[in-house]
C-alpha cells in the first residue's frame, strides 16, 4: 500500500514536531453496490500505529467513518535520532508499513 509520511528532517531534542501520514486505501465502507447491484464488502484500515525507535507513540482505531485514502496528522516529541515507523492493517488482513528517519540535535 502506497503511503507518504511528512516529518521534519531535523529537530531539536524536546521539540514538539508535526507528523502527517497519507495512505492509499479505498476504505471501502461496505455500503456501496457494484454495477450489478451486489454489496461491495467492507474493507477499511482498522488500526494504525506509529513507533518511534520501537516505542509506540501513537495509535488509532479507524473505521469506515474515515475518508478514503486516510490522512492523519498528530504530534510527537523529538526525543532522539532514529526512525518513525508506521504500520497498519485492514479488514482483509493486508498489512502496510512505511518509515521515515529523523535527526535530533541537542
Amino acid at each position, binding site marked *: 500500500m*502506497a*503511503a*507518504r509520511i*511528512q516529518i521534519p528532517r531535523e529537530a531539536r531534542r524536546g521539540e514538539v514536531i508535526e507528523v*502527517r501520514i*497519507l495512505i*492509499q486505501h*479505498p*476504505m471501502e465502507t461496505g455500503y456501496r453496490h457494484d454495477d450489478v447491484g451486489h454489496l461491495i464488502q467492507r474493507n477499511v484500515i482498522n488500526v494504525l500505529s506509529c513507533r518511534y525507535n520501537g516505542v509506540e507513540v501513537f495509535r488509532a482505531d479507524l473505521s469506515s467513518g474515515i*475518508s*478514503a*485514502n486516510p*490522512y492523519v496528522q498528530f504530534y510527537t516529541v523529538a526525543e532522539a535520532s532514529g526512525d518513525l515507523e508506521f504500520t497498519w492493517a485492514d479488514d482483509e488482513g493486508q498489512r502496510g508499513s512505511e518509515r521515515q528517519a529523523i535527526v535530533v540535535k541537542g
Partner: protein
Amino acid sequence: MRRAGIALAAAALAAGVAHAEERAIPPGELKSGSAFIGSDLRALQNDDFANPGMLWVERGEKLWSEPAGRKKIACAGCHKDQSMRGVAAGYPKIDKASGKLLNLEDRINLCRTELMGAESLRYESEELLALTAYLARQSLGLPIAASIAGPARAHFEAGRASYHRRRGQMNLSCAHCHDVQWGKRLLSETISQGHPNAYPAYRMEWQTLGSLERRLRACLSGIRAEMLPYGSPEYLDLELYLAWRAQGLPIETPGVRR
C-alpha cells in the same frame, strides 16, 4: 460582458457552425474548476502533502524509472535527464509519425507498445493514472497550449461540433451548462466552466483519481446520454476542443473535485 458571451454562444448554436476563433468564454474570464468548489476542497488541492492525487503522482514518478516490457527499458531510459516540464501542456497533439491525434494516455501507450515492447495500459488502471498524473504534474502552473493548426484542425472542428451537439434524454449539449449557465447553481453545486486543466483529478464522488475521459463519461451519464467506450475518437476530439477552449489556463493536476 457575460451577456455578450451568451449572445455569441446563442448565435453560434443557432448558426450551427461557429466562426473559427469565436470563444464563448473570453480568455480574461476563464476560471478553473477550483473556483467552483468549496474552500475546504480547494485547501486540500493546494496541500502538496495531503492532496490524495499526489499518491498517484508519486507512484508515477517511480514507474517512470522502472524498466518494462520485452526491451526492459524505463521511460527514463529514453528520456534520460530530459525535463518533461511543458510536455503535458501541449496535449492532445498530432503524432508526427502516424498523423493521429493522441492524448497523454495514448502517447504513453504508444511509447510502451512500440518502443518498450510493453503492453498497453487500460484507462483508469493504477499505472496509467499514475503516469498521466505524474506527467501532467510536471507542467504544474503552465498554461494549456494545445495546437489546433494543420492536421489537428479537423479534430478541433469535430470536437467543437461534439461540444455543441444536443444529446441524451435531457437533450443538452456541453455548451448549455458550461458556456451559458456556468456560475449558476445546479441542486447544491455550482456549475463550472468545464475545463480540463486539473485532470487526472481526485474526485470525491469517485473517492479516487480518475482521467478526463472518466469525467466526460460522467457528464454524459448525468444528462442521460449514451456513454461511449473509453478511447473513442469522439472523446479525443472533444479533449482537443476543451484544451483550446481552456487555452492559457494553468495546469493544476492533480485537481481535487466533487
